[in-house]
């Protein structure tokens, strides 16, 4: 009988391919993985416990910092569950804006994922291409919320403000000549919707570029085809959602099956894979970018034609505007109460889930009737995915671990919370 000798290898937490602070303890036989034990929690900030100690609206900003690659989608899950408990529905225009930003965020997330995943397994160029388009999307975030990443844009009852009529512009400086600034600003002359519209026109060609680089690329296929195969029945057992589940051939998307906001009025398709390997999940996500682009376009067209309120008028939940607050006594009182104490949510419990770029992002909230949530539980898609890491890499080579980490699209902000 041959002598079997396994050894233990430590991967991370400081490793460029670990997508953050993942520590993997790998049991190896030569270069073959016997088992993997992911150690998570190095980024644990007790977001849920912090949320339990603050009025409802003060935690929206924390949600951005969960999955810091798809910021606004996290906010969406959180405000949806509050709206469910309060029994309110935001105005239709706010719902369209939310869908618009969810889909922009999906593209943002998938671009980051594609760039980083490519970089991890040897495709350098794709990273630069993806970040070129991400820059435009970040500008959209900035135009609407003032920040490029952590937007804090959604509120229970709508969104913080309507889409701006002007885009922020570049200024000439000692590093940037007037001429190059004019060139950069050419696309920023119109409103935000014009800017997004221009993006949706150019974006399909960008996706073609990425696909040219990767889809038929021999090295890319060697690194991803038949790596990390998950059969559909295992994917269900392991609690996979989002592209991880669809890559295995299960057609399940909350936007279609349990539509929230206005997804049931939009036209888009759900791509599914067949083999459940890294390559199929790559194809699914790339197609999702195209579909998201289609949704963004539909939302832009609708939003152009349908002005209206983007927030509820209910002053017991939504703060009055600054102007109202300055010359109306009752508005001042409402403003004071909402910002010192917040609003009380009726006792009860609710779970709201959205189709986050990474899978099902759900928030379970228990309220005891107070101005703070009694318990908030955030169900992050990546947590379930990473829990299946050992099963996905067993029998593969060390280099494939990196491919599997990449394909899971994990971000530690949401896993560690």
């Amino acid at each position, binding site marked *: 009988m041959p002598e079997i000798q396994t050894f233990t290898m430590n991967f991370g937490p400081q490793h460029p391919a670990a997508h953050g602070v993942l520590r993997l303890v790998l049991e190896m036989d030569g270069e073959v993985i016997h088992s993997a034990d992911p150690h998570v929690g190095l980024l644990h900030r007790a977001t849920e416990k*912090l949320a339990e100690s603050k009025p409802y609206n003060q935690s929206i900003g924390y949600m951005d910092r969960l999955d810091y690659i798809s910021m606004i989608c996290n906010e969406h899950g959180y405000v949806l569950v509050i709206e469910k408990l309060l*029994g*309110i529905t935001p105005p239709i225009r706010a719902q369209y804006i939310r869908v618009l930003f969810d889909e922009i965020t999906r593209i943002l997330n998938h671009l980051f994922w594609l760039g980083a995943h490519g970089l991890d397994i040897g495709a350098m160029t794709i990273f630069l291409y993806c970040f070129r388009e991400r820059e435009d999307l970040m500008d959209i975030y900035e135009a609407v919320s003032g920040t490029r990443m952590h937007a804090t844009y959604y509120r229970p009852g709508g969104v913080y403000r309507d889409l701006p009529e002007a885009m922020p512009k570049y200024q000439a400086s000692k590093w940037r000549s007037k001429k190059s600034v004019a060139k950069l600003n050419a696309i920023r002359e119109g409103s935000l919707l014009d800017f997004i519209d221009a993006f949706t026109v150019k974006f399909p060609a960008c996706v073609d570029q990425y696909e040219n680089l990767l889809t038929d690329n021999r090295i890319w296929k060697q690194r991803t085809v038949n790596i990390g195969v998950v059969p559909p029945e295992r994917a*269900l057992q392991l*609690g996979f959602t989002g592209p991880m589940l669809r890559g295995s051939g299960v057609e399940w998307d909350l936007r279609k099956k349990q539509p929230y906001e206005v997804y049931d009025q939009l036209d888009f398709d759900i791509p599914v894979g067949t083999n459940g390997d890294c390559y199929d999940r790559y194809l699914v996500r790339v197609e999702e970018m195209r579909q998201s682009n289609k949704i963004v376009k539909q939302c832009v067209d609708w939003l152009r034609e349908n002005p209206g309120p983007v927030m509820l008028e209910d002053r017991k939940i939504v703060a009055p505007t600054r102007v109202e607050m300055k010359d109306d006594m009752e508005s001042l009182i409402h403003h004071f109460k909402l910002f010192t104490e917040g609003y*009380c949510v009726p006792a009860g419990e609710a779970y709201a889930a959205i189709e986050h770029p990474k899978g099902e992002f759900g928030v379970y909230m228990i309220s005891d009737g107070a101005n703070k949530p009694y*318990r908030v539980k955030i169900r992050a898609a990546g947590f379930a995915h*990473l829990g*299946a890491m050992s099963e996905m890499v067993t029998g593969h080579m060390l280099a494939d671990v990196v491919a599997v980490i990449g394909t899971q699209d994990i971000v530690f902000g949401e896993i560690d919370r």
Partner: protein
Amino acid sequence: MSLSNETLAARIDARFGQKLTRVDSTCGELTYQLDKDDLIEVARALRDEPDFHFEMLIDVCGVDYLTYGSDEWTTQSAAGSGYSRGVEREPVILDEADTFDPERFAVVYHLLSLRNNARLRLRIFTGDANPPIVKSVVDIWNSANWFEREAFDLFGILFEGHPDLRRILTDYGFIGHPFRKDFPLIGNVEVTYDPDKGRVVYQPVTIEPRTLVPKVIRDDGQYSAALGDEAGDA
């Protein structure tokens, strides 16, 4: 095919009878409460029987009901003084007790059926044992593995039959279960660099706990109209 909550509730009542008690929901969700000893049998039936077919366990969540419904500031009558920011709250350390209030700790399971397009929530209370212990559902839904580890780490709920019940989110060597309501928000220890020892050491926290916004419960019924609730008008 999408299964309505009422159809599903009727099926559950017919199949399980008294074992499952429906919990009222204000937002149209289906929640059932059951005895912790029935969990495994019910879970297996819910997964395998075609009437239910909950093939996915979406989430397992621990809950500590210790301070449920208690507020920090009275709002029923005018108070003579303002709210002090440096509230001193006596730590309630019940971990030493032999028993807990039987309705203190709960484990909440969120199930999803893809075939029937339905969701279901199950809740069990852990009983009065210290440490709280329930049976693990890892064998029924493998996704429970990490979710149960998390509930153990944050609430100290033990899951009998779990293959690998280790801490998951907190630091190596962490003491206590931080999401229990009697665990202070600022924690018990902090890390600092000790120049004499030349390494990072743990010490008791030096910051004061503060509550910037007191927790208040107002049941003035201001949302009852939105909820279509008659009771609030009284």
